[in-house]
């Protein structure tokens, strides 16, 4: 039963959604919109499960003083403070309420934004070190890759004078012909893979997500 019911549900709703794609009628649309609403509801419950998992894992780390338990403490503090100020309706702690709460907005503007922007900016440095390590003319293909990378990077460089239009045209050709051809090939392969895997899931062939009886 524990496996049959989810498999049956996946099959029924999977086949329904396939059929619904071909039925434009209003009545079919109504059922589709009804399912969309339910997916939101299920998603919110899953979020609650996730938050509970995070709280439990962090609490255990703090309680048993596992290595680096201090990070878990900061995680929980951040979680609770944001919830506290975000749910401030009517109490006006530090003025305004809910998501316009001054503390909530300040945490967002002065802590979250700089931290996330910093993490993303790490990419610049990692790209530099990865490019330095990887773009070596080890073979003919590697040399081609190196040259293509150099041309693309120089594409909008305004300092090359008369050569700039030729670099731009070559870079444009590289992006729009071989790059596009390879990407389309991978997209088609991935698309077929998605269709195959979706069919496997709907037909119950792929059951890894179900667990054991």
């Amino acid at each position: 039963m524990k496996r049959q019911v989810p498999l049956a549900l996946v099959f029924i709703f999977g086949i329904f959604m396939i059929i619904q794609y071909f039925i434009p009628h209003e009545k079919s649309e109504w059922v589709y919109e009804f399912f969309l609403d339910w997916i939101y509801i299920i998603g919110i419950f899953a979020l609650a499960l996730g938050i509970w998992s995070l709280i439990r894992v962090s609490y255990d780390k703090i309680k048993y003083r596992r290595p680096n338990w201090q990070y878990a403490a900061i995680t929980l503090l951040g979680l609770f403070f944001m919830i506290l100020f975000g749910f401030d309706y009517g109490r006006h702690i530090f003025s305004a309420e809910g998501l316009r709460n001054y503390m909530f907005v300040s945490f967002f503007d002065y802590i979250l934004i700089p931290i996330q922007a910093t993490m993303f900016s790490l990419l610049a440095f990692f790209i530099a070190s990865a490019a330095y390590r990887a773009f070596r003319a080890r073979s003919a293909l590697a040399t081609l890759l190196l040259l293509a990378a150099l041309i693309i990077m120089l594409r909008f460089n305004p300092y090359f004078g008369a050569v700039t239009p030729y670099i731009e045209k070559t870079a444009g050709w590289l992006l729009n012909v071989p790059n596009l051809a390879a990407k389309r090939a991978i997209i088609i392969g991935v698309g077929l893979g998605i269709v195959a895997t979706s069919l496997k899931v709907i037909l119950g062939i792929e059951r890894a997500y179900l667990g054991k009886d």
Partner: protein
Amino acid sequence: MKLTFLIACCVLFLGFPVAGFAQDTPEEAQPADSITTPIPAPPGNVTAWDTENDHGHSVSLSWEPSPDDGTGLGNVIGYIVFRSDSPDGPFVDRGVQPAGASGHTDVGSKEEASQDYMADYVDYYYKVRAITADSLVFAESVMVGPVQSYGQWFNTGRIPVLVFVLCFMAITIFFIQKAKSGANLFVRRLAGIEAVDEAIGRATEMGKPILYVLGLGTAADIATIASYTILGRVAKKIAEYQTGLIVPCYDPITMTVAQETVKTAYMDAGRPDAYNEDMVYFVTQSQFAYVAAVNGTMLRERPATNIYMGKFYAESLILAETGALAGSIQIAGTDEIAQIPFFVVACDYTLIGEELYAASAYLGREPLLLGSLKAQDYAKAAVIILAILGVIAMNVGLDGFKDLFYISN
């Protein structure tokens, strides 16, 4: 004198009925200042029909442009479509088309409370008016109707998709049956997957855990579903070798499924006691906060092997480079094309695109999974052949070939 009077009477007595008759035809206003703007010819052959392949509440129209649109008088600047639910009016403006246009779709709302509501199964009447720069000078077509709008029960514009899905299902079932009957279906070597065993062995020797990252997709993403299967196999091997496993999750639903998958793997390996629910945990649904957490885990726990399988975005290089810094063997697989180059550069083995989906069949060698993998390959071959045929057809002028694959909304 008498002749003059006679002519004046003729003009008076005959002119009025003529003028009156002119007024009875569809409105042709001619105030004094429009003497310089001649009246254009109306659009002809107006037809209206229910818009096809939709949910209703829509009528399509076509007409022959006015002879004075672009040629003749050349004073037509556009067309206005009018609709009424009665042949006597009142007619309301339902949209404007520029000069040269020969069609329009009148789309109404399906919400009864909306001002734009257009009911189905109600008679509608249409007129198309050719307009000029002088708003008082125009020419209207004859009225057409009644026409009713209604929803269709089958979208014929999507028949190519239906044909493809049915063919693909047929090929899949054929190859599954073939695999079940014991036929040996060849699958080429996937270096990334073969390296997993070696990587797990390395981790066991070093006494370090294995970090498995399911990616930033939701549980419904196909890449994540493929990743669950690989996680199951990896977890089973890890359970057998008694190595540690760390699975930080981005999505809560993914976490619950991953927990089930790992628990099942440990039970299959005969080590249910070794399973700890905290191996698989939720971190956050914020992209870079998740990456920061995983990076921190990598640098503190120093896993021997990092396995990245699923959907990754901009954080892929940060994860891979940090893993390289920590000295781990790294095996990655994603269908996100933009991230594949980063994994290729920074990881030891990479599964590209559909190789990730094939990994589940490759690992288990189950007939059902191998059969569907074969079907995928044959479908790809069919796409290649059709693409080549399409190129040839377009070059020899057989434009109809591409229309066979046209998918409308």
